[in-house]
């Protein structure tokens, strides 16, 4: 147990040693300082910047790469660990589902070179399909989980994670959240420590998971857990901050600053490692205070463990199990618990907030693809990427979205179940390479009657424009071989393949109709680059001949953010105007205009 002053005075540090870093940048810095040699990731908000940031360090120090998916990324890191080097894999929470197969086995194998997984959860679902809690994976696999509460700890804990990994022969998870990943605060940085490779350890009983070996390893894993618990009884990563003894708070990670915000003087047990939990420390802490609250975002991982130990605690009855925490939510919880005095509500000026959901960009090549998809009348299994936004009004172009690469398998199932509509799967280029290819092979093998629309915009767009095996560039921007989708698809056994330019709406629609008419698997590749990445595309803007516009709203059906209502009306409906600064001149609105009143702006001003 360690008593630390309730609040440390602002540290005076030499300016050159302090940098404002986001949590993600600090994790990357921590890995670099810890001597990481190999790092791999698949982009995923909020974890993406870890690998982007690591690629900023010298290539002589660290090989950093985008992998095709999280499982490959983890396998790459595991391989480097086998070879005796320190290795990092980073991913978002749902990425660990993809990597889980390797993850669960490697939990038995352990680590030769330090092996760290940086996993970023997304409480509040800012940019994900769910808000699962990665700590449960740690519990599931018996792998320790470190939870930094700010960028400084993100750096320190990442360094520590590599040391623990080698000391205890285990993978270690560093768990971030969106709030940690994208909050910038001052961080004291250090130098890199080089660790010579430990070399490959030839030990099949440990490295080859056949049943006979695995049975022994499971016992070793349980022994390791006991040792970790022992270590965490006194490790400085868990911090006992003394205060008023009438109640105490057990918390971890990004919840800690919220606790301190609303309860500056309270007694707090801040767990730096949220798995495994040291029984002795927890018991001693709980005995030192009259009431114990557990404040943890998402699942009651710590709370359940305490209850299993027979300790009386309060937690999820005051603090929600869904959504992201905030000082307001904690304050409300502690008010209900009778620990804080209820505060007067602020001024109640009830304004209905404007609905401003994210939309496809002006000129986005997915817009026309989904105009055509919608007009085709098909049942559409969607996938994960910017194009998932096409489910919203006005495009309403896809019916389902489950997980990365699910669209093709879902489409096979729909068609085999006998959906009366034609069945289509829409999937982006990066998602196709990530997890779509096995689905397509399955479709050919099982002779499904589906159409696959491969939306190739030459980038991983949703996460901010990352390279992938289809772009011809690596993470560090070097030239790389490029996947030839048409050849790949043909090699799988698809006989009906066409490539279209999605800016040609008529051609896209016509090709889609032909593809649907084809019995068996048909693949259409819509080939148009993203308008944002890798280069921002801006062509000559279009304008509306106001006098001719009959306000039919045909162009408004694209949902293009450059199109809004003008002041004039026709038959009571608003005429449309084009925001010249947003319009990139893709001409889609002109293609769907019923009265041909959309022209290049330059020709109208002359």
């Amino acid at each position, binding site marked *: 147990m360690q008593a630390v002053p309730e609040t440390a005075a*602002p540290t005076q540090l030499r300016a050159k040693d302090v940098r*404002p870093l986001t949590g993600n940048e600090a994790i990357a810095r921590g890995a670099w300082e810890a001597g990481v040699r190999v790092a791999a990731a698949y982009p995923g*908000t*909020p974890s993406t910047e870890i690998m982007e940031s690591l690629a900023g360090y010298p290539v002589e120090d660290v090989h950093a790469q985008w992998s095709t998916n999280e499982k490959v990324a983890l396998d790459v890191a595991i391989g480097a660990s086998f070879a005796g080097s320190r290795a990092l894999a980073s991913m978002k929470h749902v990425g660990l589902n993809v990597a889980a197969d390797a993850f669960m086995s490697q939990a038995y194998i352990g680590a030769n070179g330090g092996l760290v997984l940086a996993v970023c959860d997304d409480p509040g679902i*800012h*940019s994900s399909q769910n808000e699962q809690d990665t700590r449960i994976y740690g519990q599931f696999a018996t792998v320790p989980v470190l939870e930094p509460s700010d960028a400084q700890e993100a750096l320190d804990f990442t360094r520590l994670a590599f040391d623990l990994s080698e000391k205890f022969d285990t993978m270690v998870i560093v768990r971030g959240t*969106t*709030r940690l990943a*994208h*909050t*910038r*605060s*001052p961080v004291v940085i250090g130098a890199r420590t080089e660790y010579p490779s430990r070399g490959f350890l030839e030990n099949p009983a440990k490295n080859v998971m056949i049943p006979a070996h695995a049975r022994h390893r499971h016992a070793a894993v349980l022994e390791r857990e006991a040792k970790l618990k022992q270590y965490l009884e006194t490790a400085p990563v868990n911090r006992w901050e003394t205060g008023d003894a009438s109640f105490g708070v057990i918390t971890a990670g*990004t919840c800690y*600053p*919220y606790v301190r*915000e609303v309860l500056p003087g309270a007694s707090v047990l801040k767990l730096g490692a949220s798995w495994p939990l040291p029984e002795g420390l927890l018991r001693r802490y709980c005995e030192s205070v009259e009431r114990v609250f557990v404040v943890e975002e998402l699942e009651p991982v710590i709370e359940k463990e305490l209850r299993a130990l027979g300790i009386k605690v309060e937690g999820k009855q005051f603090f929600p199990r869904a959504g992201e925490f*905030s*000082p307001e939510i904690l304050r409300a919880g502690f008010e209900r618990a009778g620990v804080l005095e209820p505060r007067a509500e*602020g001024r109640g*000026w009830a*304004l209905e907030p*404007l*609905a*401003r*959901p*994210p*939309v496809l*960009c002006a000129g986005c090549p997915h817009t026309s693809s989904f105009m055509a998809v*919608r*007009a*085709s*009348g098909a049942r559409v299994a969607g996938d994960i990427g*910017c194009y998932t936004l096409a489910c919203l009004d*006005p495009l*309403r172009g896809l019916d389902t979205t489950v997980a990365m690469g699910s669209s093709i398998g879902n489409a096979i199932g729909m068609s085999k179940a006998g959906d009366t509509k034609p069945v289509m799967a829409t999937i982006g280029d990066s998602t196709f390479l990530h997890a779509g290819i096995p689905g397509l092979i399955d479709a050919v093998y099982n002779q499904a009657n589906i159409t696959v629309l491969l939306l190739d915009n030459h980038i991983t767009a*949703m996460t*901010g424009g990352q390279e992938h095996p289809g772009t011809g560039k690596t993470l560090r921007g070097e030239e790389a071989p490029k996947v030839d989708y048409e050849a790949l698809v043909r090699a799988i056994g698809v006989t009906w393949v066409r490539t279209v330019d999605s800016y040609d709406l008529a051609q896209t629609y016509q090709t889609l109709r032909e593809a649907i008419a084809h019995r068996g698997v048909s693949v259409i590749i819509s080939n148009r680059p993203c308008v*944002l990445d890798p280069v921002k595309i801006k062509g000559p803007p279009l304008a509306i001949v106001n006098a001719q516009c*009959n306000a*039919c*709203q*045909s162009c*408004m*059906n694209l*949902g293009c*953010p450059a*199109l*809004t*209502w003008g*002041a*004039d*009306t*026709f*038959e*009571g*409906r*608003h*005429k449309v105007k084009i925001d010249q600064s947003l319009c990139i001149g893709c001409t889609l609105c002109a293609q769907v205009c*019923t009265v041909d009143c959309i022209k290049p702006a330059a020709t109208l001003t002359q």
Partner: protein
Amino acid sequence: MSRPTASTSSIEGEPLRPTASAAKAREPMNVLIVGVGGQGVIMVSKALASLAQSKGYQVKQSEVHGMAKRGGTVFSHVRFGPQVWSPTIPKGEADILVALEWAEGLRWLPFLKAETGIFICDTKRIVPPFACLNRRPGAPLRYSRETPAEVRAHVAEGYAIDATRMAEELGNERAANVVLIGALSTALEFSAADWEQALAQFVPKKTIAVNLDAFRLGRNWIEEERTAVDDAEAPLAHIPAPAAAPYNVRLEITPAWCKSCDICVKLCPERCLRLNQERIVELAQPEKCTGCRLCELLCPDFAIRVHLDAVAKEVAAMPGAKA
């Protein structure tokens, strides 16, 4: 167009620095910066965070990436002081709310301190596609109808600044965020020279000159705004929504002319048409039809006519109808 009116609680003539004292105390200074993806919200917060850090404060700057580029709402919390805990500003505790877009400013008003909070908002309106989805005749734009005067009456100290227009006049619309930094700068303790130095690090090299002009423009504007005596009170009323025109939509379908191509069915934005058992078009969900005429305009065989029966007279009286 914005100056503190008599109805605000700010004390006339007092320097605009309630926040400087807050930073000296233990309480951190809370600045919330909001806008729409692509407007430069993050640049404003980075410049402020960097400046505060250079002055020895602990700083936390927190935002959510991901959907920002896609025209969604963007916000950045900047907190600085001797000790900062939560990376996010609790509701009702922002000292200053800087908004780069009008409706976004209104969205975050509940985060502002009721007694002393300063609201600095660009009057720029970025209307999302969602606001323009109703195709019924006379349908209102779904965008905030609060006027600057109305908002000023509800906040301790409010400024509605035409920052985007001012930046356009400088020849670079993208410098609007720096006009707002200029306005913000007077509410904080840092000197103009420090601000200009911080800005130079965060704008592209080629645009340093125009951005410094934008900064001074915003700074001067708010100082003049504070000293100006405003006798002419702007009306407090909402911008009225247009009265929805009563109308009666009737689809006249000539079955003999329909060749079952189903273009109308597939392109109807409300999905209210279908082909019947004889594969002739019919209006399946009359209550959803808005009378937008798209089916009439798209039918290659003139098989559909849309009649907006009762609406004719009212529509003729609406502004712009003859254009």
